[in-house]
């Protein structure tokens, strides 16, 4: 079993829809959770960083963490064509500099 599971998609949605992305993980030691957005041929851009269970909002983006279920989510409200990218979840824990990544989820927002 991989440490982090992320359904690679791709996921196509119409403009204005809510995009919902999920990752599950097996290592209960993970405590820091990140979502990255990566446009084609660019480096990953940190979107959200959280370290506690619950929700964190930043504009149209909401990151949700459920440590009891080992499950994290990213929601994108009012999706725009510019949100078309690959979204990677990543996580680590105190004292461990290595990020465990999901495989990435390709999202296409159709105008």
């Amino acid at each position, binding site marked *: 079993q991989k440490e982090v599971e992320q359904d690679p998609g791709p996921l196509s949605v119409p403009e204005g829809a809510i995009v919902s992305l999920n990752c599950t993980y097996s290592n209960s030691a993970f405590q820091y959770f990140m979502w990255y957005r990566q446009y084609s041929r660019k480096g*990953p851009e940190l979107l959200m960083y959280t370290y506690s269970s619950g929700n964190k909002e930043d504009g149209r983006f909401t990151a949700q963490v459920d440590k009891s279920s080992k499950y994290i989510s990213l929601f994108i409200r009012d999706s725009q064509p510019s949100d078309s990218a690959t979204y990677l979840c990543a996580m680590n824990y105190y004292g461990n500099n290595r990020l465990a990544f999901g495989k990435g989820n390709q999202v296409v927002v159709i105008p």
Partner: protein
Amino acid sequence: DAMVIQNPRYQVTQFGKPVTLSCSQTLNHNVMYWYQQKSSQAPKLLFHYYDKDFNNEADTPDNFQSRRPNTSFCFLDIRSPGLGDAAMYLCATSGQTYEQYFGPGTRLTVT
């Protein structure tokens, strides 16, 4: 703006010809990382520096070396590039918290 800078953005080298990729950061972070990312895959950690302490991943080929002459700069040396080394190479940094910030990447082509 504080950032992670990678040069060059595109590098073409010949099979077996040594190549050096560079990374600099203005974030004053103490940890710097080198990742390899191939198409439709998550980034794969090659090694990282915690200050001057070098940490090599067990499955990183000997063909890959790194230098960190000071806090701001880090280099990736590929001693004898093979066709399988064609990829995007990503530099990242992290500081007192555990999220990582990536540079734009260097796309390496091996002919």
